[in-house]
């Protein structure tokens, strides 16, 4: 490569990097302007960190699973036990921190499958509108959507063994059609934009039209939906566990804990109050965050 060519490419790469940094800065500005979305982000980060390092943060890490110490049972909230103790003398606060692990794992696993798969299927169906592939994908989505979500999840969990993994599988299976439907409707309107026709005139391959022309224009709604849905995934996961078809005791899953401890209401109210308010906090954080992400894309 000639020296001047080298210089030119160096300069372009530098400018490109600069532009990217600039647009990230602008996106962060739009996000950080809203106090609510910042609050959501901070709460979520705190929850993620405490879940990751639960062993070090939880005051009684051993209380997460099977642990019995009847001497400390039924203690109301105090400085030693922030959320009190349960019927076996376990520290509820420690269990809640471990419980976040399962909730976040659920969200991560479900969304990391549902969002890409649902998006790709929706893109295919929307872009190839009128062809057999559209009918195949959308009718399949209709079938999954036509069964009430919780009923579908419950039937999958009861056919298979009730455990955390199968609960995730159930939620994944019931969730993808919603992304497919949303992306489908976006794709089938965007595919008639003149820039798509211009790309066709140039000979851009279909796969590149879908992923490089259409997808960037859908990222806003997709990511906003994903964050707002994260809270729904937490809720549905907890509901499945609450009904006894997800994680089984002594797993410190938030839903399982609420289910277990609700038998001790109202006298030992702190047992269920701990995991329930932890669940509410996580859901709230995701919702605030979703609003912030919407602002980031709306400002563009």
């Amino acid at each position: 490569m000639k020296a001047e060519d080298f210089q030119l490419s160096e300069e372009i790469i530098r400018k490109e990097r600069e532009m990217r940094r600039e647009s990230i800065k602008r996106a962060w500005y739009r996000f950080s302007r809203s106090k609510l979305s910042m609050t959501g982000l901070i709460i979520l980060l705190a929850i993620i960190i405490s879940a990751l390092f639960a062993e070090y943060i939880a005051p009684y890490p051993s209380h997460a699973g099977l642990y019995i110490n009847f001497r400390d049972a039924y203690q109301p909230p105090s400085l030693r036990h922030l959320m009190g103790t349960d019927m076996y003398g376990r520290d509820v606060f420690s269990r809640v921190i471990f419980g976040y692990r399962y909730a976040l794992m659920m969200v991560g696993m479900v969304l990391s499958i549902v969002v890409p798969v649902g998006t790709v299927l929706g893109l295919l169906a929307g872009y190839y509108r009128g062809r057999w592939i559209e009918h195949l994908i959308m009718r399949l989505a209709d079938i999954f959507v036509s069964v009430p979500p919780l009923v579908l999840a419950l039937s999958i969990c009861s056919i298979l063994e009730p455990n955390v993994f199968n609960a995730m599988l159930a939620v994944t299976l019931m969730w993808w059609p919603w992304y497919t439907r949303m992306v489908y409707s976006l794709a089938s309107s965007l595919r008639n934009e003149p820039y798509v026709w211009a790309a066709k005139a140039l000979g851009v391959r279909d796969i590149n039209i879908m992923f490089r022309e259409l997808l960037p224009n859908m990222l806003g709604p997709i990511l906003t939906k994903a964050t707002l849905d994260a809270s729904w995934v937490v809720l549905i996961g907890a509901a499945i566990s609450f009904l006894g078809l997800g994680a089984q005791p002594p797993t410190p899953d938030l839903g399982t804990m609420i289910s277990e401890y609700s038998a001790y209401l109202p006298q030992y109210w702190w047992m269920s109050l701990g995991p329930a308010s932890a669940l509410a906090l996580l859901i709230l954080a995701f919702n605030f965050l979703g609003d912030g992400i919407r602002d980031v894309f709306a400002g563009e």
Partner: protein
Amino acid sequence: MSILKVEDLKKYFIVPQGVVRAVDGIDFSLEEGETLALVGESGSGKTTTAHVVMGFYTATSGSVKYRDIEIGYTPIEKRPLELRKEIQIVFQDPATSLNPKKNVKDIIDTAIKIHRKGLSSVERLKFMLSLLEHIGLSEDLLFKKPHELGGGEKQLVALARALAPGPRLLILDEPTSALDISAQARVLNALKKIQEERKISYLLITHDLGVVRNLATYVAIMYLGKIYEYAHVDEFFNRPLHPYTQMLLSSIPTLTEEEEKLLPQRILSRGEIPSPMNPPSGCRFHPRCPFAMDICKKKEPPTMIIKSEHGSHTVKCWLYVNAHERNLNKA
């Protein structure tokens, strides 16, 4: 050999209410390095014609030949890259024809990557910079997104993208009608310069007679899916024959008496273009024509060739068929 030859092209759309005869039997040809302007009101079928040439629609019947190759029935997805390279398009509104999420470099690079394979990224960049300079765009725009550009700049970027593959035929679908006046001039100048230097043929779709005067070599007047007059641009402005053409020309606003004198006999525009779903019988212009005769309502006028110094000037109007023949036709 013409670069583009269209013969008896028809494009019908079937809708729940019936059949829309958007283009109903038109003929024209375009020579290398020339510009043919398809002029008409909205709904006259000019954009449909352009889209058939592009392959966005396929023809219902008739033929569209690009250098003697039939392309009217090959949709864009089925056209080989070598053909797509030859025919490119600039759309009316650059705000929608440029992907809002891509910057100028990525937009033009897409075109270069496909049609100039084997270039390294630096070579592509150099090619892009020379293209931008040629069109009159600053390289500072390279990393801007469409919404950060002015209307004229956007349209020039769209033009650069269309030129990047090295087309021989460029379809300009109302290239200036979404722009403000100063931006229009900029785009028109760039188009003229490029045609002079590269000898590209333009198929210009427009309803702006100012653009026609600036760019066109030949003009075809479309009305409800048919071409009613075809002439060299000088003939078109100096000796318009069809009453519809005269009506269009006399609708140009004038400032002075002298300008007024240049216009043909004043024919006030009346009525609106009827629906192409149910076009009038005979000559489709007769309900709006001040000279309409009985025969105009009954029979479609033949195409008359009138000699002129700029080659053939054709008109489809009963006024130019002599009385004797008209009577024969009546009987």
